[in-house]
């Protein structure tokens, strides 16, 4: 389309005088740069969308029991005990996520300022990111195990040994260790985004530290806390290796991922395994939606002081 000597009008003077197609597309933010998105799109399609849809389809094709057979089996079959596994996983993931968020807040609060050794301390706090689950589990076994240092030390003092691994506590502790760095780093960045002059202003207006935290910092931080909680919760909810290595996978830490793994690897019931995976996703989604609903009631705008 060409413009014939006329002022480029805004599509009001009839189709003949409309600006060129590329201009109109550019007005809506569509241009050639969008092509750069293609590889990412392809990647997501091949590695995420397709397997997900495939698994979803698989979960509706059980050998017996009709369309929802696998789901019925997951929730009702006494040998699967799917509902139990959801509770077991929630009981691990919710406290782990909550604790990580709660512990990170005061730490990040202190770590915001400048002080000597800040870099070293941050490194120590974040280093568990680099540890694999297996290494963490090995450490836990060495330290908390039946013959671990802690129990040997307790033995020397004449105490009964504590059962801290191969049960709920071992897995919870492992989840806290692996989830904490994420929670801490996220909250630190959210906190750093809050203009420190806001707290200075609150101080000059007579607010002590409790009032400053409750009335200024916390409301501004809350949306960030919600997001951090969601992320660490999802990380923890998919717990699998530590449930086996430092847990009790046939009993108190029979998590949902283990149920899915069992259905797939032991019973070769792929639809059941898929159903377990879909249920897992659904539970995560429900928790996240609940948290986001809570978050939507908060102030979410800028935290930069200039409003």
């Amino acid at each position: 389309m060409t413009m014939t000597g006329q002022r480029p009008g805004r599509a009001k003077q009839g189709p003949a005088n409309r600006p060129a197609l590329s201009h109109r597309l550019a007005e809506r933010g569509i241009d050639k740069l969008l092509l750069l998105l293609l590889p990412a799109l392809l990647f997501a399609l091949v590695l995420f969308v397709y397997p997900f849809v495939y698994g979803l389809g698989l979960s509706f094709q059980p050998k017996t029991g009709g369309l929802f057979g696998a789901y019925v089996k997951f929730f009702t079959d006494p040998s699967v005990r799917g509902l139990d596994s959801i509770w077991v996983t929630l009981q691990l993931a919710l406290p782990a996520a909550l604790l990580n968020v709660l512990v990170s807040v005061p730490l990040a609060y202190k770590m915001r300022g400048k002080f000597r050794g800040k870099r070293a301390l941050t490194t120590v706090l974040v280093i568990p990111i680099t540890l694999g689950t297996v290494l963490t589990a090995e450490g836990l076994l060495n330290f908390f195990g039946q013959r671990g240092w802690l129990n040997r030390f307790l033995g020397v003092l004449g105490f009964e040994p504590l059962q801290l691994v191969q049960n709920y506590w071992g897995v919870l502790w492992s989840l806290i260790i692996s989830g904490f760095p994420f929670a801490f780093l996220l909250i630190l960045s959210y906190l750093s985004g809050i203009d420190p002059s806001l707290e200075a202003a609150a101080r000059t207006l007579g607010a002590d530290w409790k009032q400053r935290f409750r009335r200024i910092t916390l409301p501004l931080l809350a949306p960030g806390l919600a997001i951090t909680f969601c992320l660490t919760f999802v990380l923890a909810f998919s717990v699998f290796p530590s449930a086996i290595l430092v847990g009790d996978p046939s009993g108190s830490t029979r998590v949902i991922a283990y149920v899915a793994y069992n259905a797939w690897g032991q019973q070769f019931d792929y639809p059941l395994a898929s159903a377990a995976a879909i249920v897992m996703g659904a539970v995560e989604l429900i928790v996240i939606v609940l948290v986001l609903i809570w978050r939507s009631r908060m102030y979410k705008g800028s935290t930069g002081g200039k409003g």
Partner: protein
Amino acid sequence: MSIHATSFETLELENVARSFGGQNALRNLNLSIRSGEFIALLGPSGCGKSTALNCLAGLLPLTGGRILMDGKQIDRLPPEKRGFGMVFQNYALFPHLSVEKNIAFGLEMRKVPKAEIKKRVAEAIELVQLGPHATKLPGQMSGGQQQRVAIARAVVLRPPLVLMDEPLSNLDAKLRLEMRTEIRRLHQSLGLTTLYVTHDQEEALSLADRLVVLRLGEVQQVGTPQDLHEHPVNWHVADFMGYRNLLEGVVERAHGEAVTVSVLGTTVTGSAQVPLRAGDAVKVGLRPEDFDIAPAGTAPAGLASIDATVEVVEYQGREFAVEVRSDAGKPLHVRTARHVEPGQRVTLTATQDRVLVFPAELASAPDRAPQLQGAAL
């Protein structure tokens, strides 16, 4: 009107000092503030003016000296116990609270009864003329409106002292003028004792009853706007007071106050601000408006004159800002109502009493680290 300042008899800063990691950002600040006074701390960035303000607010602990209010030492009190109002450069409004709640915040912290909070907030909103915006969030308002909220939030507490940290520097030129008048009006009607930090000499001159000029953490001069404008104590203060032409020269003859200085390849007679002797290195300060400009050769005889060529002419309403280059190669700034053209040859003259001659050396503490000039605060 029930918003009025709670006041004090005297507020004394005695040798107040603050250093950061061994570098002195502020040294030996002595100032006695009278109730109801408007004082401006003036200086370039890094001169210690914001440090001084933060020390007074309690946001920075002192590393030396004392602050006394009515004879009571207050420099150990945390900011929340000092009760000074503070207005920040970036407004520092609580972004999640409405205008009303921002203003009510300090009153709530002081456990003022609800009914009184409501009344006083309404008055404060009225005072800064933000009636229709009371329930808005700060993010929905313009910069000028936000700064009004910040001012209302500080003055609603009837503080004995209001500290303002470059409150206008984030506003555009027109708004800055408006708010300047507004601040002056508030100060006059409420009788608020105010300490105002700025790097803008015009702002300081127009607002303050007294000015404190700082350089590298040290007070250069304290005085009324007129004092400083007419009689700066050294070339640094002169520089800040609009003496844009500071020319290096050497004293040739000195007769009491009248000194003859060789500068720009010619000689100029001016008034010495401190006793000077022949041979002293000096800086000659001249304000652009104190020059007389005349076409070359028409200058009245008997006055010291500088020959120059016009380079840039800026039309500024009633007069022209002219940049000329002297025959010795130095650019000079002149303001004149006379119309001149770029390229024109001119002669500049100035009367002796408007040619200020300062020693080139600034008296400065020897242990002062010179690299601090670039430091923040």
